[in-house]
């Protein structure tokens, strides 16, 4: 996978197929991006599991915190890592000990570890880096268009008005993006400079 520019169908396929998401680094502080993303994905019907050793014994929006991935005790489809790039590898290594393996490892906006990605991909796990699943879900459903964001999708179909807890269709027509987008090219240049 080219991690500089993901085709929409790759992201769409992941968000349409996973049901449970373990969020590593989920924060109970309601101004942290992980809290926003956790809450949004829960409202859109995903089975969310907060993973943060600092908050064991507490709950995040009704879901009990677990200390680590191995403590989840049931299969998870996707692991969403809200940690800096330098803390990614140990989480991926732990994920690779799970049985069954997760189908997807997702690293948040700003996080990228190509070696960890290669390790996960070598055992068939799909990897997304430097993206936010909330933003991508909002973009592909065009819900994010309320904020003036370019969803890079079109549709001539009448969609239901989104309500609390509703799953939205992500199957709109994509209109490019990826390596056609100046923003993705800029991100690639930044990665190369490192």
């Amino acid at each position, binding site marked *: 996978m080219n991690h500089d520019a993901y*085709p*929409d*169908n790759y992201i*769409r396929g992941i968000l349409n197929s996973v049901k449970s998401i373990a969020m590593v680094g989920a924060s109970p502080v*309601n*101004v942290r*991006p992980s*809290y*926003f993303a956790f*809450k*949004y994905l829960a409202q859109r019907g995903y089975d969310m599991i907060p993973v943060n050793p600092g908050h064991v014994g507490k709950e995040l929006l009704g879901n009990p915190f677990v200390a680590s991935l191995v403590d989840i005790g049931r299969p998870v489809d996707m692991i969403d890592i809200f940690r800096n790039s330098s803390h990614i590898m140990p989480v991926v290594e732990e994920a690779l000990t799970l049985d069954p393996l997760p189908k997807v490892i997702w690293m948040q*906006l*700003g996080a990228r570890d190509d070696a960890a990605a290669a390790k996960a991909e070598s055992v068939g796990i799909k990897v997304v880096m430097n993206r*936010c699943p909330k*933003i991508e879900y*909002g973009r592909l459903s*065009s*819900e*994010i*268009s*309320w*904020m*003036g*964001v*370019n*969803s*890079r999708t*079109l*549709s*001539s*179909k*009448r*969609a*239901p*008005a*989104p*309500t*609390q807890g509703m799953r939205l269709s992500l*199957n709109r*027509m*994509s*209109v*490019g*993006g*990826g390596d*056609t*987008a*100046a*923003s993705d*090219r*800029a*991100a690639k240049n*930044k990665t190369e400079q490192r």
Partner: protein
Amino acid sequence: MSDRLPGFSTLAVHAGAQPDPTTGARATPIYQTTSFVFNDADHAASLFGLQAFGNIYTRIGNPTNAVLEERVAALEGGTAALAVASGHAAQVVVLQQLLQPGDEFIAARKLYGGSINQFTHAFKSFGWNVVWADPDDIASFERAVTPRTKAIFIESIANPAGGITDIEAISTVARKAGVPLIVDNTLASPYLIRPIDHGADIVVHSLTKFLGGHGNSLGGIIVDAGTFDWSTGGKYPMLSEPRPEYHGIRLQETFGNFAFAIACRVLGLRDLGPALSPFNAFMILTGIETLPLRMQKHCDNAKAVAEFLVGHPAVASVSYAGLPSDKYNQLARKYAPKGAGAVFTFSLKGGYDAGVSLVSKLQLFSHLANVGDTRSLVIHPASTTHSQLDDAAKIKSGAGPDVVRLSIGIEDKEDLIADLEQALGA
């Protein structure tokens, strides 16, 4: 569902719009409402805390305006946009996110006269100090960079004389200085030039001009290219530092490559207040649907009129980048191959008096202070749009006393030429 890039005309009609979820209305409805009900207290708190997507109050966002924002973002190739009340409002909101009192920004000397005034006088009272540079001399931008420089501002096609700016060369200066390049793309529209493809980090427009296109609605817009890294060195605290207005949110960290557009909305528009009327957004959206058709006709007519003027004995010179002899023609071929725009100037051998006489005799051209209308327009910049400048500054900005500015409309070109012929000849 394949990932392919549709053409510009398809985006001009469709981007951002879809049938209304409630009624099935196919045209974008005018959501003429100040406010939007919340589902419950938690939903309200989520919206105010920037945690959920949705509408609160039309000063912060409106569904009609949102369609306009996404459409222009798509046409410009940006990540997001914010519509505001006017092009001037767009400039205030952009610079408020970038400059603290005492900071500087570099601006091209050849700009719309209203922008020159805004930068020189209004922004000075905010402590935002403009430093002028010459768009025909790239080194003058490099020389103007200081540790307090926070942005560079240029026009893609410069008002009033229609010169083409070397966006790539100036974007190299901006990148080296570590500051964003802001391009006012009003006179080109994204149909002719997409500044983001040439290194712009932020694009602004007066939507009042070619995008709206019919001379009936004011509006402005800010497009975030998503290309600038705001996190470095604490230089842009509105983007990189915890915002007390929002309980410590860091916008870049939270919103990634569209954080600038969000900052303009939640820190600029929310607090300064220049919201666009949803009715104007609707009018402008309708205009944008035909932008490709109109813009090509504007350019084709402008070239024909410029060629006519070159051959007329009363005309001293014509400044139109679409003419092979023009000093900007090379840049026009590179940046605007479909046409060099429809706003340009020419000077008359008879000087100021001949200009006044011409304006009074024209019967199709309207004498007024606007550009980018379906109708052809004429103005004498030295006595109007650029009248606040002193004589030296008028000449430097391309608005000397003998100069007449035209904005060519989409009428039949033969009629425009005949009108100019009778007004020049009699």
